[in-house]
């Protein structure tokens, strides 16, 4: 009889019920990214503008002679617009490899051999990227609003601008959803994170440049639909009470259609095996 059995030993502990495994995927993705110093530096830089705006709020609220710094809806609107640059960089950095790297390492068959669905997998990956994007859009914008309340010592500004909180929230959600879904769909198309990053940059920058050129040349505002980012701006402008260049309904339809395409791509590409017909 052996002194110590070194054979296979069975597990006698508890097993979690339920089929919601996406938080496990999201948490692992977030922790892995936060271990990278370069990414942490990028996140830190993305908050610099918040610091500048916070000082501006303090000066505008507490110094009477600096009333031109006083906050308005436009303060928050322009802040969220400026954060689009960081949304772009963080999306590329944290999102390009989300599915592409798994495809390269044949990890999809490992994921899908566990008790998780394809929707769990996609939701987990989406939540990974969305968490970082929310951290540089909605969170700082709402913190700015909280600072304004703190500096002024009253809720007057918030109550006199009732659409501000919904506008900030919806704008952030739309920015995050558009960037995450587009990046995830593009990431699923390739086994290379670099290629996925290039595709995203192409969709974002190139489409925007083409749209500007065509709009300048023809004077027609409809070209804005060529660029998903600028189409989104049409909607967010409307949310903050700015007259949009084209009817908002058309912009909403375009964004919803793009999301639909992204979902269709993910539905087709996220499979345990590539079945060649």
């Amino acid at each position, binding site marked *: 009889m052996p002194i110590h059995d070194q054979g296979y030993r069975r597990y006698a502990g508890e097993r*979690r019920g339920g089929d919601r495994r996406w938080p496990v995927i999201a948490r692992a993705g977030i922790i892995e990214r936060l271990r990278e110093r370069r990414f942490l530096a990028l996140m830190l830089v993305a908050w610099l503008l918040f610091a500048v705006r916070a000082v501006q709020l303090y000066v505008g609220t507490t110094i009477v002679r600096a009333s031109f710094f006083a906050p308005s809806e436009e303060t928050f609107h322009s802040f969220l617009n400026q954060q689009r640059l960081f949304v772009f960089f963080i999306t590329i950095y944290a999102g390009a490899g989300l599915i592409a790297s798994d495809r390269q390492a044949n990890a999809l068959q490992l994921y899908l051999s566990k*008790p998780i669905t394809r929707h769990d997998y996609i939701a987990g990956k989406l939540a990974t990227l969305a968490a970082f994007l929310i951290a540089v859009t909605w969170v700082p914008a709402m913190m700015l609003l909280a600072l304004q309340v703190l500096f002024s010592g009253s809720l007057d500004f918030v109550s006199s601008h009732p659409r501000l909180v919904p506008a900030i929230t919806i704008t952030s959600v739309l920015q995050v959803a558009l960037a995450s879904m587009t990046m995830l769909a593009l990431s699923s198309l390739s086994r290379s994170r670099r290629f996925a990053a290039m595709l995203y940059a192409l969709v974002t920058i190139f489409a925007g440049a083409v749209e500007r050129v065509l709009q300048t040349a023809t004077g027609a505002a409809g070209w804005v639909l060529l660029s998903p980012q600028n189409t989104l701006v049409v909607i967010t402008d409307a949310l903050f009470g700015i007259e949009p260049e084209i009817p908002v309904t058309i912009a909403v339809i375009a964004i919803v259609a793009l999301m639909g395409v992204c979902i269709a791509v993910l539905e087709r590409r996220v499979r345990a095996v590539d079945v060649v017909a």
Partner: protein
Amino acid sequence: MTGPAFATALGEAGSVVTITNVSVRYGPRLALEDVSAALPPGAVGLLGPNGAGKSTLIKALLGFIALERGKLRMLGLDVRHAPLEIRRRVGYMPETDAHIPGMTAVAFVAYCGELAGLPRADAMQRAHEVLYYVGLGEARYRKVETYSTGMKQRIKLAQALVHDPDLLLLDEPTNGMDPKGRDEMLALIRDIADRISVILSSHVLPDVEFACDHVVVLHKGVVATHGPIAALKGDSARVFELRVKGDETQFVVALRDVGIESDGESGDVMRVFVPADRPARLLFEVAARHGVQVRHFRASVPSLEDVFARALGD
């Protein structure tokens, strides 16, 4: 015994996997055609040459591939209706190199445990345990990307074992391993099969013969034969090594006419399989009838290779 007959004889209650008239199609190509088998508990080998449909069958069992026709049941559950419950109770080691990028071995295996439903602390503890078990204890803090081929095979086994499945599906587990590593992997599989059921897909006959008790031989998408290896190999007294001088081709044809199969190259030692209902002296009678001299005659130990050759009709 044919597929459905075997399945019926064993009964669903006694089998971990029941395959009933399963067909799978990749575009115009039929990868599995009307496959039926019942796989009993213990170690079962899925044997067949490359392209026989072994991996396809495993992927169909996991619900990765839609069936064109038929029904699959694993651990008493219908694959189509309870895929998540099945995956909770099954471990899968894929054929191809597969890992979650950027993770150390212990983080990777623990993550797989969590995905399979283990609490976080238990998953980590179990990850350490199985990594030691598969022989990667010393390398568990290294990133998986830096592992050698043999180590990658071991970690694939570890991630399949971490949640302690009731059934382990192993697709070519010894691929790319050196002889020592291969022996160790087979010893692990043998040890695991004493506690949980294992389905081992391989084209390497000695691997299946060493590790398994039962075998299903697939060829061109159909079941060529299946059953307990010992029974398929048959009575050791019925296989003989033979070397003859004379018209060997005619002799082989004559043997076939009296129901005796043979294999082997011309001019070399051939192996003949004498059915139980025929006497061995029939060999000499046939040789004498066709003017062939028997130069060498010895009883042989039948191997899985013989079963395989007979099943494939080589």
